[in-house]
């Protein structure tokens, strides 16, 4: 595992960029804990000040320090994304393993349900859910809701991997030598499945955080919790652009661009790393 990460660092500048951005933001998210103000309170600093040495990113019309607000937003968005990723990974791995390993009727049943979730238009359904629970949705519960809906495609990926693993010789050896199913799955299969889990996790995080921004922009999440989405929502709805408070609107937008780009590049580069065919081509491309 460590070796793989090291190889990625050396070979792929995109991985390096993505990793550094995420690492910096992660540090920022931790630093949010040292914020001098409660991010939910209004009027803790003078309003509408441009960036200065005292307020690094200025202040907004609600009397909040944009810099600390942004750190909180990163923290909450990342936590929300992580919860969504973890909960959807649990469902995806369980469904994928069960369907792939058991096969037969179980496989057909589970895959029919999975395919339905792939096809279902999630945005309107999520809108229905969030518009009902709106202010009751905390960062955690929003993450879980997104997790419940975001697992389907990845379950399919994991299933097809398990399906091919099941036909491999070492599975027969393990079964015939009396290894228990649990052991086969965790000892023998996990090393193959784990990279898939990581690669799909990046995409899922991207999706979950993008969905949060969309829902927040529409005003469908609890608006007093600072996230990237709610920051944009407040700035846009308070006419920050027309009033010329560029630091207020630009901060979350630029952060969004960086986070999404970083996650996307990470997922691209991990996927390529896992798919030797693409890797070979890239090397040829560099040579040519």
């Amino acid at each position: 595992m460590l070796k793989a990460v090291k190889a990625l660092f050396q070979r792929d500048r995109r991985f390096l960029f993505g990793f550094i951005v995420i690492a910096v933001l992660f540090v920022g998210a931790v630093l949010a804990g040292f914020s001098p103000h409660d991010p939910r309170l209004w009027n803790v600093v003078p309003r509408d000040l441009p960036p200065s040495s005292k307020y690094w990113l200025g202040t907004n019309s609600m009397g909040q320090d944009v810099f600390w607000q942004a750190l909180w937003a990163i923290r909450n968005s990342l936590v929300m994304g992580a919860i969504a990723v973890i909960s959807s990974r649990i469902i995806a791995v369980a469904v994928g393993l069960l369907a792939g390993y058991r096969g037969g009727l179980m496989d057909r049943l589970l895959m029919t349900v999975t395919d339905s979730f792939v096809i279902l238009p999630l945005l309107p359904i999520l809108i229905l859910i969030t518009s009902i629970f709106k202010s009751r949705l905390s960062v955690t519960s929003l993450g879980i809701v997104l997790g419940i809906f975001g697992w389907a495609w990845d379950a399919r990926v994991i299933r097809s991997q398990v399906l091919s693993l099941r036909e491999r010789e070492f599975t027969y050896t393990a079964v015939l030598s009396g290894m228990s199913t649990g052991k086969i799955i965790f000892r023998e299969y996990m090393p193959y499945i784990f990279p898939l889990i990581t690669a799909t996790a990046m995409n899922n995080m991207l999706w979950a955080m993008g969905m949060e921004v969309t829902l927040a922009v529409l005003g469908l999440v609890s608006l007093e919790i600072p996230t990237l989405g709610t920051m944009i929502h407040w700035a846009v709805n308070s006419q920050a652009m027309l009033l010329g408070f560029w630091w207020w609107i630009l901060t979350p937008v630029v952060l969004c661009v960086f986070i999404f780009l970083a996650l996307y590049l990470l997922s691209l580069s991990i996927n390529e790393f896992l798919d030797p065919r693409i890797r070979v081509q890239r090397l040829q491309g560099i040579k040519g």
Partner: protein
Amino acid sequence: MAFLKRYLLPRIVQYLVVIFIGGTLIFIIPRLMPVDPVQQTLERITIQGAFLDPRAIEQIREALLELYGLKGSLTEQYITMWRRLLRGDFGPSYVQFPTPVMTLIRISLPWTVGLLVTTTVLSWIVGNILGGIAAYYSTRRWAQLMENIAMLIRPIPYYIIALALLLLLAYALPVFPVTGGFSIGRRFVLSWDLIVDILKHAFLPALSLVIVGIATWFMTMRLLVSNLLAEDYIVYAQIAGVQDGEILYNYAIRNAMLPQITGLTLSLGQIFGGALITETVFSYPGLGTLLYSSINTGDYNLMMGITLLSVVAIATGVLLMDLIYPFLDPRIRYE
């Protein structure tokens, strides 16, 4: 017959399951609501100051229960919902009472369909062609430039791109009208002017959709084609001296087309959810705006109607796709 049973039957079952799951979700979700919509509406009426005697309140409550489909036990409500749906009746809108939800949807639908079908198909065609070419000539500088641009646009939330375009081309350089689907006060008499007006208003939303669409299709197509280029038959064709253009169009792009066609159906099906963000940002009078206003006014019937319609539309799209797929992919036909 065997083909019918092996290929067609599972797909029709899948179709029904999707609609069943979608419908059930949409049935359950509002019932998880901690507040009682009937009670809420009644409170709204009494707060407005009217004094009603208890019997009138009871009558109103009955009427509201009926209207919201909340009458009887859960099972009865569930059956009522499906019966209504099969008739294509989503009930009346709560806010614009008593206009049926279906009528509201029918007014907005043409706007959305017009805008999204055009942009989806256009960006699909352009994105696929560019993606194929860029993958084939992946070592050239212009191909790498195109890839980098697409890579930059692709992960950015669509909302931010739309916002940037709006700021740039409507506020900063006022080339295009800021909002709406047509000039205010214009009468709908078919004329050249009207068409120009509608097109002009649709341009910015269309542009934002096309930019994002092209980037997305470009990236997937590039990946697909560059995977195909490593296949033996392509290498053989190159060694045999088949011309580049022919290899690209007849060997690579044609094969990469199949998953892309599936993708196109899926995204065409998404249309019925309305390009929510596009329409909200540009105040375009389509399904998305309708959905947005239903969110803001708490018009659950309308929200459920649009959601269900998009479930049915997307499932139907996928089914239709599955039905024509054997004509496109000979491997399925002869298997």
